[in-house]
């Protein structure tokens, strides 16, 4: 699919705090990030959404000084970071996609050490660490070594370490990946609270619903190129008025989508998983004929559910990538398969 780079869409509410222009990065001749440009406004929660290997982490690495762009410019808070990556590091905090704190230190020691890296004095460090441990509900684990923390606790402490020095900008790389539902929910609440407190947040995620729930503007990145940047409400405009239905069957039936498409040419059918179909239409969908035909094909319909069109529909439409496939790919990577 030929993807055209969109024009840069700046935040409409505030001046740009992060400005990236034609940022490019190649690894061994392969283009990982291809001339991407975007602005993030001060206090904005900006989402960077794309599948595995799309260039999200490489982009964060270039913005934060862990990677050098081959070309392009980066300014954070007006400081030229492409030329001097250290120039703006005092302005931001980074939460990497892996919880990379020190396993041999306790939670409290880890936070104090991270604060010291930003030159905070002892009293400030200790007070800040205590406050964050309380905020992140980790006070009971404060004196336990990081290596003994659960995945969710590690993630929360890693986020706390990213904000201990009260940065103006926070880069969050896949903050909820691999954590349980309750922890993910709590982390999302914390991200929202940080945003409310005025922190500019640059969030990369695989989870479309997470981006939809949290972000003001979103960039879709595929194959190292930004294919769309817009506000969530503008992105959703494209699918408003659309009718969507999710149909679950007891077992998979080969070529079910193809035969349904023949029978109902006005409807769009997408395979979500082996046992799930997504039906889209510009007009209301009649469930009865659809279910009858599916059952005639030998599949037992276990559920037919109307759905509100979501950002996932926009993502699929813009990138041509099934969101579920993206999620599964990530889960496979996490499981080390």
């Amino acid at each position, binding site marked *: 699919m030929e993807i055209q780079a969109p024009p840069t869409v700046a935040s409409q509410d505030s001046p740009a705090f992060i400005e990236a222009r034609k940022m490019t990065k190649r690894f061994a001749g392969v283009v990982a990030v291809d001339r991407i440009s975007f602005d993030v406004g001060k206090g904005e929660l900006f989402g960077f959404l794309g599948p595995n290997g799309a260039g999200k982490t490489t982009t964060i690495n270039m913005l934060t*000084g*862990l*990677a*050098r762009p081959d070309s392009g410019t980066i300014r954070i808070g007006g400081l030229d970071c492409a030329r001097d990556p250290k120039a703006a*590091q005092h302005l931001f905090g980074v939460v990497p996609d892996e919880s990379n704190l020190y396993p041999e230190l306790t939670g409290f020691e880890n936070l104090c050490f991270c604060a010291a*890296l*930003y*030159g905070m*004095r002892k009293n400030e460090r200790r007070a800040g660490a205590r406050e964050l441990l309380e905020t992140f509900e980790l006070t009971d684990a404060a004196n336990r070594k990081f290596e003994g923390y659960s995945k969710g606790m590690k993630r929360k402490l890693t986020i706390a370490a990213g904000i201990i020095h009260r940065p103006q900008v926070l880069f969050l790389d896949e903050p909820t990946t691999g954590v349980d539902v309750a922890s993910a929910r709590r982390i999302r609440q914390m991200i929202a609270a940080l945003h409310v407190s005025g922190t500019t947040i640059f969030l990369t995620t695989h989870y479309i619903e997470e981006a939809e729930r949290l972000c003001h503007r979103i960039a879709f990145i595929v194959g190292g190129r930004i294919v769309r940047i817009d506000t969530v409400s503008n992105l959703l405009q494209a699918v408003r008025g659309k009718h969507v239905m999710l149909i679950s069957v007891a077992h998979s039936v080969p070529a079910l989508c193809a035969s349904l498409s023949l029978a109902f040419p006005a409807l769009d059918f997408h395979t979500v998983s082996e046992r799930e179909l997504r039906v889209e239409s510009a007009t209301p969908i009649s469930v009865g004929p659809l279910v009858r035909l599916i059952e005639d094909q030998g599949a037992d319909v276990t559920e037919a559910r109307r759905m509100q069109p979501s950002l996932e529909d926009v993502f699929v439409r813009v990138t041509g990538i099934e969101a579920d496939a993206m999620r599964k790919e990530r889960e496979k990577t996490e499981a080390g398969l």
Partner: protein
Amino acid sequence: MKQWIAFWNIVLKDMRAYYLKPPNISWGIIFPIAWTGMFFIKSGGGLEQVLPLLPGVIAVSILFGTTSMLAVTVTFEKKARSFERLLLAPVRLELLMLAKTGGAILFGVANACVPIGLARLLVDLSGISWGAMAAAVTMIAIVSTFLGLFIAVSVSEIFEAQTFSNFFRFPMIFLCGLFFPIDRLPIFLRPLSYMAPLTYGVDILHGAINEANTMPLALDFLIIGIFCFALFFISVRNIHRKWIV
């Protein structure tokens, strides 16, 4: 000031997390004792052999202690990605790496105290020039640590760091005049001796302990200083080139 807070806390963190751990403390004591005992027994002499052996034992204790530690503190943290935290801190890379090596330098100096303490129990050390000895121990600790840093930055796995370290360490035991005078080495090996930084540190120690240095001490200090600068800046450049890609 903020940069120095970071500097000091990196040194303290490494000391607490790595160097002051019981296995490392015992390793830092047992290893120098083993070297001392081994060479003392091998010499076949009496207590008069302690002072001639002392420079070599001090140097080898520092060399092995520092280079082994850097493989852990740098290579391990790089592998576990916690090293990224340092790279993201608003502190110049040169200062970060000085902090990262500071603990190892102190560990090396502490290692040197073990054979000196043992020798103190066995023989009279009143003839030693303690000022030159302290300077030599410090310089050997610095150059060995920077050699360890150079090795740690050149590899990606801890076992590679240990293997690569031995590539430098074992030849240096025989080439640098630790236990065998350089002028008794085969003539074709002697140029290699003068290419190793430890040669100059050991020469200062021979001068401080036995007044048996073969080169002027000022020249020894100058050359070992050049090695320190070169190893450190090559390592920092390699971090820039290889780790911030």
